[in-house]
């Protein structure tokens, strides 16, 4: 791929289409590269984090019941550097040395839960260290993240000063509908809403985000910033006025409103940085689409550019979501087969007759992350690549889509007795100052659990090591950073 011509200097008057629905307003973008604190970037000091969700299991039938354990088409059947290729890992064939395949990762919170987490709730413990909380709202999939997710904790440390401290993206076919299953949580029970419309992502990240304004030049942009500033000042004053009259619960509600307004404010304020030098160029504004393959590529291109331009340093990226009825006609999968709708979800619950389609979807979804990693690798930053500076952790909300659990049956055929270690899998890439890639690391018998993988990522991105890197993890789940990821392969692993 050649995502966005990152190596070519920014055309000084890159003209972008404006935001308004079909208005085609020309917006000049000379300020774009100015977002980047370039000094830091030149020193290679800027690190980033991307959390990725590949829904319904890394291989949907990974732990198929009824004794069929040959259906794990993700996990390589040997560990170490020369891991044998598998069906759905094919997209990483050219990236073998850039990624680590992780398997056998346990999850303590799920292990100790009274029952297996029901139906795809793994999304709320993927990046959240605390146990999930339940919302009593009469709806299914009611588990909620139990605290602030790691991506946002990282953003709290490294995101200040960028236009968007964090960027949450979701590929979805319905741009309005609230999809369950997202990775980012502001706080316990407060899911962070992802963006689903690639054109709106573009507007928010790369343009002033103002319909019908026609900010033709820097002066217009300055005016816009000033006007927006006045408006938001008024809003904040009204929030303060109302807040004094409210009870505690409603104050908390209002504070979340204020938090959202402040984020908008920060984004708008960042539009004023004076233009200097060159750095990166913006991709074209994608059109609004709900076609999965179109949206996915557009979002990844936008994300890589946003990272390259240092407009954001932290992102989560979700392809669809758990239990979503996404159809994949562009992979040649029929809408209905044998009278059953062939959504990804129903295929994950299907039998061996639809396994080929499950593999196709799994490989396609993993290919999206391969494309992301390849794009980061293709972008230079100083004498390193953007991938070197970015930790990418890709996993799933379930160990097996078939079984609906964040865990599942262990590799090798033995079924998992209650309370025994779970078997989650990941693809880890980037952050090469910290990680040494190129191997398949498998933790046998729960020798490493989920929180340790997260802790390693947290250390790699924030540079915080020692006890402080576990300060955000509940004591009962603390453990050293997952072993085996820094060229330190130990006997604990198989």
């Amino acid at each position, binding site marked *: 791929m050649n995502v966005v011509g990152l190596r070519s200097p920014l055309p000084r008057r890159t003209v972008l289409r404006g935001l308004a629905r079909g208005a085609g307003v020309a917006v000049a973008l000379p300020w774009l590269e100015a977002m980047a604190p370039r000094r830091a970037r030149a020193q290679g000091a800027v690190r980033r984090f991307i959390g990725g969700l590949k829904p319904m299991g890394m291989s949907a039938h990974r732990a198929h*019941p*009824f004794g069929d354990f040959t259906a794990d088409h993700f996990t390589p059947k040997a560990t170490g550097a020369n891991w044998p290729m598998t069906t759905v890992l094919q997209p990483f064939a050219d990236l073998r040395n850039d990624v680590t395949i992780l398997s056998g990762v346990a999850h303590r919170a799920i292990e100790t839960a009274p*029952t297996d987490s*029901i139906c795809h709730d793994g999304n709320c413990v993927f990046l959240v260290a605390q146990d999930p909380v339940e919302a009593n*709202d*009469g*709806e*299914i999939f009611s588990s909620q993240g139990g605290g602030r997710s790691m991506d946002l904790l990282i953003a709290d440390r490294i995101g200040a000063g960028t236009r968007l401290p964090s960027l949450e993206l979701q590929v979805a076919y*319905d741009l*309005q*509908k*609230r*999809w369950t299953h997202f990775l980012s949580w502001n706080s316990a029970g407060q*899911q*962070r*809403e992802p*963006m*689903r419309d690639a054109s709106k992502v573009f507007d928010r990240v790369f343009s002033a*985000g*103002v*319909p*019908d304004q026609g900010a033709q030049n820097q002066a217009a942009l300055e*005016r816009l910033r000033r*006007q927006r500033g*006045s*408006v938001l*000042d*008024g*809003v904040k*004053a*009204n*929030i303060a*006025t*109302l807040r004094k*009259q*409210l009870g505690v*619960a*409603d104050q908390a*509600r*209002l504070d*979340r*409103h204020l938090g*959202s*307004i402040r*984020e*908008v404010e920060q984004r708008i304020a960042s539009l004023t940085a004076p233009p200097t030098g060159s750095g990166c160029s913006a991709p074209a504004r994608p059109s609004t689409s709900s076609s999965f393959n179109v949206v996915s590529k557009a979002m990844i291109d936008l994300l890589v550019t946003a990272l390259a331009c240092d407009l954001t340093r932290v992102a989560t990226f979700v392809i669809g979501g758990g*239990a979503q*009825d996404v*159809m994949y006609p562009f992979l040649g999968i029929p*809408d*209905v087969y*044998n*009278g*059953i*709708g062939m959504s990804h*979800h*129903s295929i994950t*619950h299907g039998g061996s007759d639809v396994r080929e389609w499950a593999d196709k979807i799994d490989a396609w979804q993993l290919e999206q992350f391969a494309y992301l990693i390849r794009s980061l690798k293709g972008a230079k930053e100083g004498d390193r690549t953007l991938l070197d500076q970015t930790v990418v952790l890709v996993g799933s909300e379930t160990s097996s889509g*078939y079984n609906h*659990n964040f865990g599942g049956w262990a590799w090798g055929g033995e079924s998992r007795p209650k309370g025994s270690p779970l078997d989650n899998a990941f693809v880890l890439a980037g952050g090469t100052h910290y990680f040494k890639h190129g191997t398949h690391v498998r933790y046998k018998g729960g020798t490493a659990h989920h929180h340790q993988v997260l802790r390693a990522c947290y250390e790699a991105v924030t540079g915080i090591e020692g006890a402080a890197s576990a300060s955000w993890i509940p004591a009962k789940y603390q453990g050293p950073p997952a072993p085996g990821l820094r060229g330190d392969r130990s006997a604990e692993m198989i």
Partner: protein
Amino acid sequence: MVSRMPTATGAPAIVALLLGACVGSIEGGMGFEPGGGEPGSGGTAGSPPPGSEPSPLPPAQPLPPSAEACAPGKVQLGRTPMRRLSHAEYNHTVADLLGDATAPASAFPADVASFGYDNNADRLEVTTILAEDYLATADALATRAVGNLAALLPCDPAKTGEDACAGQFVAAFGKRAFRRPLSSEEAANLLAVYRSSRQGGDDFATGIRLTITAALLSPQFLFRAEIGAGQVADGAVKLTGYEVASRLSYLLWASMPDDELLRAADAGQLATDAEVRAQAMRMLGDPRFAARARRGLARFSAQWIPASAIPANLTKDPAQWRDWTAATPALLKTELAAFIDHVTWQDGGKFATFLQAPYTLLDRELAAFYRAKDPTIPAITSATPVKVALDPARYAGFMTRAGVMALEAGPATSKPIRRGVFFRDRLLCDPVPPPVPDPKVDQARAELDKPAAANETERQRLERVITDVQCVSCHRVFNDLGLAFENFDASGRWRAQQAGQAIVTAGVLVGTELEGPFAGHTDLLGKVAQSRQGRECFVKQVFRYAAGRGETVADACTLATLNGAGAASDYDVRQVMLAMVSAPGFLYRAP
């Protein structure tokens, strides 16, 4: 509670195979008497022909005497959290505030439903993404509004001076936007936006535009906060007249108060039960406000009857139903909307009618859609839905409309379990918990997800697959409720046979006060429509929508009032909704 899977294209419904007890309400402990007496005869006398003006609302029945514990002053008040406008309320409000009918919130990330309703206070947050949408939308709304500045302003800036006129505008517009007079601090906040704009070199219209934008982003507009006018003796907080006006308007119209409500609040005439009830009667009963009342009440009805929930991309197996097209889901929603409107406003609005009406409203296309499977449906030439009598042995109310039956089905099979779980949850308020994860469940689900066999009915399939004693202990409470509707295929239409066999729809009601056999779906619907459990469930549904949250023990008096009004009016949805206003706590909030 198990709600429907968020399925558009036919993921397998959750197969509720559950270990343990299934019978009994999760809510529990709230079995009060329905306020008074047997269902009365307080309905309307006869219905006008379809298409005519809505019938006037019958006068409110005198309320049954409240139980001593529910007497004013002794009322336990439920929680009243600050509520963000739902997207529907936002659309209605900007239409009424600015005359802007563009329904901009329809493009926002959807509100999260709770108990089936999209207005739950605890789920309506302002996320960052929504704040961005609010900002862009407020900007667009304000820009359109100042396009006709003269109509917007209460003054002529050329005469009064621009700054003075801006001050008058802030007071006048702010009062409507915030649904109450602004405090001096709030007025100053908004005026500061105008001043800052002018100081930056903007013209007058721009200053006004930015002021509107700021108002539309303020929590005083986006939320309904109830501060109150001070505590009364028992600690409850009496609401201000303006807060009562908003309670009324969002309850009955799903929008902001009109000028008359604000005038009544100005005059202190929303302080007593009688005053408030008179306003409520005007809002629902006066034909001049019929459009708002219809729009408002439909917010409840179209979510209780799952019409809003029908996704635009609901698909069905093309091999079985070639006439199911991309346009069909919208068509079926149209039918339900017409049915809801007709029952509510021209046929007495009764719970039993929603469940048992032997008619529907069809246009040419809808009639052709139904006729393809049932020749007893007449051909219709009208391009707009008209009332059509149906065979009462086959059809009864909304449950037998294709929109509901197709929504509660898979793409190719009728999914009786799903239908049964839905029925028990929505019509009996006895939700079924999801199954415990177990390979047995997966195995059964796989078996039930297979296409229908040529020689096996759905009933026979359930009997074959669900044999485990633990599974049966739970499934027995809802399987029959779904199997009762086996005469409706996955496209929601009539079928006399399945797998070459006659369809058996008789079953047994278990774990309800209706314990006992029923003869088929029309008999089942009739029994529920006349039962206390069915009626009280309907009342609970109204309450969940009206209060924007699930019921708690503290809501016992309010629910008793609603049940009383229901009993006195044959459970007319309008009277039950109106009873929220008569409930002892309507003028108060909990401290």
